[in-house]
């Protein structure tokens, strides 16, 4: 997956969690939580979807790596390079 593919994947998962999520003003370097009204349960949903769709096991201590769209891409890129 390219960096853009990973970005799209995350946004697609968020859209499934909250169909009203608005990405028009989303800044990829800022925390998703502040911009999209996501709570800790929503981040757990992202972790579970990544495991379901791509068999990724993300340990709890790495959850902070999913804070912004950019940090998600940086963290997931090596894991999804062959996906």
């Amino acid at each position: 997956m390219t960096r853009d593919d990973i970005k799209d994947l995350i946004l697609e998962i968020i859209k499934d969690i909250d169909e009203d999520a608005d990405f028009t003003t989303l800044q990829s370097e800022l925390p998703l939580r502040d911009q999209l009204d996501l709570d800790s349960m929503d981040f757990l949903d992202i972790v579970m979807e990544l495991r379901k769709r791509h068999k990724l096991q993300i340990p709890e201590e790495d959850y902070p790596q999913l804070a912004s769209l950019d940090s998600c891409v940086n963290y997931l890129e090596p894991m999804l390079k062959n996906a």
Partner: protein
Amino acid sequence: MPFSLDKAADRYDVIVIGSGLGGLTTAKRLSYCGHKVLLLEFHHQLGGLATWFKRKGHIFDISLHGFPYGMVKTCKKYWTKEITQSIVQLKNIVFDNPQFSLKTTFDRVDFTALLNKKFKIPQTTIDHFFSTVAGMNFYDDQTMTTRELFEEFFPGRTDVHRLLMEPITYANGSTLDDPAITYGIVFSNFMNKGVFTFEGGTDKLIQMMTEDLEKNGVTICTNAKVDRIIVEKGKVRGVEVNGKVITAPAVVSNSGITNTIYDLAGRDVFSQEFLEKADAIRVNNSSCQVYIGLKKDAAIEDKGDLLFTSTAPIFDSSELLDMHTRSKTFSVYYPKTRPGHDRYAIVASMNSRFDDWDSLTPAAYETEKQALIERTLVDLNRYFPGVNDKIDWLEAATPKTFNRYTLHSRGTSFGTKFEGLAVSRSLFKEVSGLFHVGSVGIIMSGWLGAINYGVIVANDVDGYIRSV
């Protein structure tokens, strides 16, 4: 329709023991993740404490008293659109005690106005209090108690303490001496938008959840009491139920945490260090309830949906737990609760200690139960004068009743105190493949807490199954 046990297969990916809202949600999430799930319930009805019973044309809800708005998002994400659409607001929450009487929507806007105008608290103090409790997390420092939190913001104001604490004591069994974070998290959840209920009642909710589980391929067996969880070499192998062995690499217990450790798995499979933590768990208190059904053509005026009443001079956590407490809530179920059913029912709830009731002789137990009903009617007549003539069903439940139907240690109706959470969360580190979901640590209790905890545990289980 749930099956009897003889229809169950010999092997599953995961077995869930118990069908409280936590167990149901874990089963749902794991089937959604593609696992083959077996759900076992000892009772003939699913739901755990999210339950109901029928008498003489009445349907009485046990724990449908009001939950926070967060249920809307949670049900939408983890259950179905139809379930979400049945969630409606309860707009009239009443407080009546010797210190004050008021009606509120129980949300931040209304509480701010009340605290400012009626209780004369400065706006800055109110705002600071709300931002403090809203910022609380379960991993924060636990040394501050709710009593200390209240004294810091509202020193000496026992009336304000009562307004803030009384509903939460009934919601999760917490006291002024529990960690302030357990108060703050639950209180903030309610203050978001007020109090909500499930239109159609508990029976409709559980029926909708059951249908959704079956659609997702979960095998559900009722009247199936698990005798033990089979653990071999530090690893779960399955369960023994009604003499039958069913294997699975993962078992999730939605039984009480103490029941899970001592009765189902057994002490011998745990380390000494873990057992010390488990032995220190305090189970929370239980409840008493009085169920009041009104005659078919009888009606009562709308005096509010949830009435927090007391004749005790001030709020005192131990007074609320006393066998002869003067404090109780009335959940009033008008015909709007179950459209089409058109009956009025009232459920009075009190917090109570198991030991107080368990130590009585059978004769004294019956006498106390009757006295409980009579005290409740006296209190009820203050709000609905002459209601006695309209009643055609009266029945009481005590902590022993809760124990009988849920099997929970000492009939606890609010799970465990805060320390139970860490033990529940670390169970699978002790025995591979063994997980617990249920009311632990106060914040995971209540309908919303139980469902969300079910999702959290399902994530752990899914991660585990996929790694073995």
